[in-house]
């Protein structure tokens, strides 16, 4: 059946995509690959939920069969939640269908069968708008649309999953601490902080401010001091206060925090781009500035 098809490995995100798809007046179908996801998806307000039942433990292994299914159904648009698995299966399906794909779109307008999208390029410095005729695959990050709800029937379609990549083990990542995407104040550390024990000054500042601690990509991914980081490939945050120390402020980081109410940067380099992104800044050594700042805030 023609219409919009939706997939996300994160249920709530699938419900948000249904919320958008319903505004187009087209038939809205969710694609799932396992029984549990299908049962949850049946409450997200779609017209129909498809369970493409293969036998692979890796979602991405269903790409080839899902592409064939979407082609047979004459899908007009395939919306996929932008997560690592979602981006992978979406692009593989676009590859098998040899169709258009736009990644991580921030806006979608559908008009007379044409799809117009906006997305960020150059790390977030530039917004690009694109136009597509015909079938398109779009990936969409969370938080863009209101989730829908309502019951749908489930139709099971048997498929053959690709078995060439096999899963050997899975180790869950246990994210300790709070979810920074909801934090009201954030103290952010960057690679300018060289020793893990120095994080104490950031912790002390966070404590007097009632803030959460976050970081740039290198601190989380290379040094693995903290679980979550801010930026184009990490989290997007909107705190009332974002205060950084030892963060140069490259666009790929700034894009994740530039909607904060107030941005403060502390950096030793007066040319650091963080100062272009900041409301207030101090050019100085964080090990001198931050202890003074903690004291001044305590004095209030």
């Amino acid at each position, binding site marked *: 059946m023609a219409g919009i098809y939706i997939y996300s490995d994160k249920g709530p995100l699938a419900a948000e995509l249904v919320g958008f798809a319903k505004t187009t007046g087209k038939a809205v179908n969710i694609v799932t690959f396992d029984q549990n996801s299908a049962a949850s998806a049946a409450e997200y307000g779609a017209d129909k939920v498809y369970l493409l039942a293969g036998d692979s433990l*890796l979602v991405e292994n269903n*790409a080839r069969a899902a*592409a064939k299914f979407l082609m047979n159904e004459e899908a007009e648009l395939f919306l996929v939640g932008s997560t*690592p698995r979602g*981006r*992978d299966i979406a*692009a*593989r399906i*676009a*590859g098998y269908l*040899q169709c*258009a*794909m*736009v*990644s991580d779109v921030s806006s979608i307008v559908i008009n007379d069968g044409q799809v*117009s999208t906006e997305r960020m*390029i*150059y790390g977030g*410095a*530039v917004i*690009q*708008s*694109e*136009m*597509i005729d015909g079938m*398109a695959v779009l990936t969409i990050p969370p938080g863009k649309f209101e989730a829908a709800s309502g019951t749908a029937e489930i139709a099971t379609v048997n498929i053959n999953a690709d078995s*060439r*990549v*096999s*899963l*050997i*083990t*899975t180790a869950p*990542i246990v994210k300790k601490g709070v979810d920074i995407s909801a934090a009201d*104040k954030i103290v952010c550390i960057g690679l300018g902080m060289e020793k893990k024990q120095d994080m104490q000054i950031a912790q002390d500042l966070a404590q007097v*401010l009632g803030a959460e601690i976050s970081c740039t990509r290198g601190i989380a*991914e*290379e040094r693995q001091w903290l679980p979550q980081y801010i930026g184009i*490939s990490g989290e997007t945050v909107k705190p*009332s*206060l974002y205060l950084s120390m030892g963060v140069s402020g490259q*666009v790929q980081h700034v*894009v994740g925090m*530039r909607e904060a109410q*107030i*941005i403060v940067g502390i950096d030793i380099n*007066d040319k650091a781009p963080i100062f*272009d992104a900041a*409301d*207030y800044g*101090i*050019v*100085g050594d964080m090990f*001198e*500035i931050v202890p*003074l*700042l903690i004291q*001044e*805030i305590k004095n*209030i």
Partner: protein
Amino acid sequence: MGKVIACYKWVPDEADIKINSDHTIDLSKAKWKISDYDKNAIEAAVQAAQVLEGKAVSLTFGGANAKSSLKDALSRGPDEACWINSDLASEADGFVTATVLAAAVRKMEDVSLVICAEGASDTYARQITPRLGAELDWPVITSVSNISINGNTIRAERQLDDCIQTVEAELPAVISVLPEVNDAPLPSLKAVIAASKKPVTELGDKDLGITDLTSKTRVQSQKAYVMIRKNIIFTEGDALDQVKELVGNLKKEGIL
């Protein structure tokens, strides 16, 4: 003993983008570079080629100015470079790029492994690895943070948002590596000198025998994101005075 291909993109440095008064962008002053994370893909390919006792080949699809990238790429360790020189590259979408790269890989013969980075620093669309895998209909492994190769089997750790998966596939395969997979060292002077002697294959898109290379998406506009901030920066004077100024301002803002 097949080849290991490292794909990379030659991109303008996003830090050099100038914004015109109408918010359009000016790239004419930008320096160009090998997309940051592609350096890790090149290093991963060099390491994998050693294990497989094959050749590492760098592959780029770029316009005339990508010629400058070849020596830079080769100085990072590959044995050979391949450049698909085409004006189509500047406006290529994921479909066109994956189609061209797949055709180049097919033409090279005896390829065991293709390694890309997770995304390019200009578009960061993160499509090419899965699309290229689909074009070739090879197994695909994305988000790889660790690789081991044993005989004809690749075992990889995938760093996802909620778990780390260990997966396995038989070669040939297409994978994308995260920048954390290795440290891509700066090339030594010796490596830079050696790079000029390494073989380069240059092909046009016409040499690849592809009939349809029309992008499926049409770019309508590119506008700079304009940041409007107060930019009150304390640069001079006593650190305590600066801190007092900052605290005073944050109080006024209602933050403290």
